[in-house]
């Protein structure tokens, strides 16, 4: 029987917001009083402010308190224009957005460069500066008295009526929320969430952490600028008192109450913060206490705000997830990779020390396309350090690294990733709160790009890449045998499955060079077999594979060349057949005790290193 939940599932997710939007647009026609219309408008302004904060706090993970300053910028720009003859509301909005972006970028660059809490601090001081700045330009802003004489807004020459103004505000909110929704459901939204949880992972996927954070923060200034321009036309009066620190706190409270990592949570938070205070009579005196209580309640009881609760309920009662038993036999056995344009990797004379500890000394090795180059060695011999230098996480002290003819030792990690380098991590890095399919999708960031504008506005380019993304993700999930887990939360999977997922994420970018850091560790025998099959296919497709691995059998069966590291130096290089019988490998790495007589002499001078 078709239950209610089955029917609900087939309804597109934007249906409810769309219905709400239409109702809000029609409210004045349905007889909403002027006082209540004003409340709707104020909720609209607050929604814009909160939503902008959500982008930087909830998605990019950067706390910014400067929304009132941006709001003020927009308001004063519109007020100045309105008082000096430019009354068209669209022009005012455009100018306010421009000014907001400038302020956002100018404060964002130093704030983000300094890292940690400095963005919160710089934006906080920005709010404190508002009255002072207003005082510096009394002619334009009216100083402490406020800007007056703002002419009634026009729209292409026509006077904007009360309902017209109401419509402009509501449509601005709707348009912004649609923009925001499109942005965060696109690959950019996933990139933001990946970056928030693991900047290291983000940069290894080709995402520039600084640029992306700046973009999120600056984009978050846009709705605040719009809100400012709209606000200036509400009472035709703008005074510095509006843009107080209390406003900053109430924006933050609304964001947290509604759910910072959500689109429509901003509306919920704004409604609570706008209407909540008007319920209490003695509110004016106790505003900060009230906000404080709401913040604590929100922070403690609602980890993801009201919208998080709604989401949970939706998942629990409507989306009934099928928990398939993890049947590895379901993985595709017949598959092939499109030819990979493998690049030669050359490491030449690379050295690195941390403090006084020489981690790597004069490493020389080449990895050829269409081959598997393995690195083995005892724990702490420098294998992962070498991988981290190839990826650009560490700088070399000496020597060069070359990928396909490009010197990379001075490039940043996201730039190297964009040259076609993909990797997995020794402890899989799988962000929380995103699905298996989305994890794989995050690997598609680098090979094919879509601008934020075309993602948020759903331009043709977006749909084209979106189709590629879906096809590629589905194909790779099928290859690694994770198709039936595509919609599961990725961070709750067992270790072995997380490893396969990391490999899928690396492979989906069609890498020219792929670095696998102990990918077989924690895999069961089926999974090791599948991994070997995969690596073999990647090699046959022409990819350059670097394999750091402790599973000696796997290494012997797959590698074309094996390099053995010990204490930061390459002590042996050769084919599997050579390495298998190398006495130093047998004693120091494998811990074989009774090596043949031929090895006895060598064993004698490596006393103590193995028992």
């Amino acid at each position: 029987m078709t239950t209610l939940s089955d029917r609900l599932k087939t309804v597109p997710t934007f249906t409810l917001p769309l219905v709400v939007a239409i109702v809000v647009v029609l409210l004045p026609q349905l007889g909403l009083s002027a006082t209540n219309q004003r409340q709707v408008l104020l909720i609209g302004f607050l929604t814009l402010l909160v939503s902008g904060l959500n982008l930087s706090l909830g998605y990019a993970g950067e706390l910014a308190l400067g929304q009132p300053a941006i709001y003020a910028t927009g308001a004063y720009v519109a007020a100045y224009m309105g008082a000096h003859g430019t009354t068209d509301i669209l022009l005012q909005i455009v100018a306010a957005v421009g000014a907001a972006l400038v302020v956002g970028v100018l404060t964002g660059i130093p704030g983000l460069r300094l890292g940690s809490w400095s963005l919160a601090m710089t934006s906080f001081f920005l709010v404190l500066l508002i009255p002072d700045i207003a005082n510096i330009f009394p002619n334009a802003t009216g100083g402490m008295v406020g800007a007056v004489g703002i002419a009634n807004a026009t729209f292409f020459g026509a006077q904007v009526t009360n309902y017209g103004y109401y419509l402009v505000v509501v449509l601005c909110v709707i348009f912004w929320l649609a923009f925001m929704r499109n942005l965060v459901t696109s690959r950019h939204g996933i990139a933001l969430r990946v970056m928030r949880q693991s900047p290291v992972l983000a940069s290894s996927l080709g995402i520039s952490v600084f640029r992306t954070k700046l973009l999120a923060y600056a984009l978050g200034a846009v709705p605040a600028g719009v809100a400012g321009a709209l606000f200036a036309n509400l009472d035709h009066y703008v005074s510095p008192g509006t843009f107080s620190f209390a406003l900053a706190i109430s924006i933050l409270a609304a964001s947290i109450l509604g759910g910072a990592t959500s689109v429509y949570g901003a509306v919920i938070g704004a409604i609570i913060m706008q209407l909540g205070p008007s319920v209490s009579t003695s509110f004016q005196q106790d505003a900060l206490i009230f906000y404080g209580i709401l913040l604590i309640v929100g922070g403690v009881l609602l980890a993801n705000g009201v919208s998080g609760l709604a989401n949970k309920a939706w998942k629990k009662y409507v989306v009934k997830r099928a928990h398939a038993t993890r049947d590895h036999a379901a993985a595709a056995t017949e598959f092939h990779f499109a030819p990979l344009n493998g690049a030669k990797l050359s490491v030449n004379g690379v050295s690195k020390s941390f403090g006084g500890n020489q981690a790597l000394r004069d490493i020389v090795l080449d990895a050829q396309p269409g081959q598997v180059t393995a690195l083995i060695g005892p724990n702490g011999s420098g294998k992962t350090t070498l991988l981290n230098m190839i990826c650009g996480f560490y700088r070399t002290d000496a020597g060069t690294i070359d990928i396909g003819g490009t010197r990379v030792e001075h490039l940043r990690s996201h730039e190297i990733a964009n040259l076609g380098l993909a990797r997995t991590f020794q402890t899989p890095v799988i962000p929380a709160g995103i699905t298996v399919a989305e994890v794989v999708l995050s690997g598609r960031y680098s090979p094919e790009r879509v601008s934020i504008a075309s993602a948020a506005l759903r331009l043709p380019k977006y749909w084209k890449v979106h189709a590629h993304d879906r096809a590629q993700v589905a194909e790779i999930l099928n290859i690694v045998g994770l198709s039936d887990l595509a919609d599961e939360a990725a961070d709750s999977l067992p270790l072995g499955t997380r490893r396969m997922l990391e490999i899928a994420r690396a492979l989906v970018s069609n890498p020219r060079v792929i670095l696998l850091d102990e990918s077989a560790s924690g895999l069961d025998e089926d999974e090791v077999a599948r991994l070997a099959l995969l690596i073999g296919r990647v090699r046959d497709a022409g990819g350059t594979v670097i394999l750091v691995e402790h599973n000696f059998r796997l290494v012997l069966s797959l590698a074309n060349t094996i390099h053995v590291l010990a204490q930061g130096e390459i002590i042996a290089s050769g084919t599997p057949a050579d390495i298998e019988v190398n006495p130093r490998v047998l004693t120091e790495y494998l811990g074989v005790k009774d090596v043949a007589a031929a090895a006895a002499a060598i064993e004698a001078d490596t006393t103590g290193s193995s028992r």
Partner: protein
Amino acid sequence: MTDAMQPSQALLLEVENLATGYGDIRAVWDVSLKVNPHELTAVLGRNGAGKTTLLRAIAGLNKVSNGSIKYKGQDVSSLQAHRRVGQGMALVQDGKQVFRRLSVQDNLFLGGYSLGVSRRKMPEKLTRIYDIFPALGERQKVTVGQLSGGQQQMVAIGQALMAEPSLLMLDEPSGGLAPSIVDELMAILVTLKHEGMGILLVEQQVEAAIEVADHVVVLDIGRVILDAPASELVDLDVLKEAYFGSAKLEGGVADEATDSE
């Protein structure tokens, strides 16, 4: 099958008909197993079989929805995780759960404090850990975050050993360790069990685990599919049959496996 009827005073851990999982997702349906002092019980099985979930439930990190966990004859299934540690049950989780910003020595100290080991006895215990893992002895003051992955794994195991637990549970301790270190680790486990510790070992390196185990339990999809003394599994074909059922190995990775087919 389990010989649950046989009474045993010396039983250290007895898990009966355990069912557990995450939230409403059940990962372990019905598992019974025992660990005696002086013995090592190995839990094997494919990934996703419920091995980690089982260990987490025994350690008190997952809620038990059915069945019982008896430790030293007393039902601990409603005891909080830290109280179980206090009673001598220690779990080494997979994925290097260590304090990355503290030194090796401080990490080990913390392992000892959890059982209220006195400060005076610490140096002696530290020496023992450094004997077991010389690589750590050379790096006592080094911040753990700077160690290699394998060395961090050693710290995690060392932490648990500092508490001198009666029951030591290890979730894939060989992960990220070089073959020679794995051999050493297994030798250490044998020494520990001879000293009286009961050990529950989840391991993917099947042959290494069976070599040191007294008893082997194989899980599949949250249920016990094989429960036998390790001595009966010297012939690995029995195990492979249970382990993989009809699924055939492919790809020719595991040379020995293909040879035996």
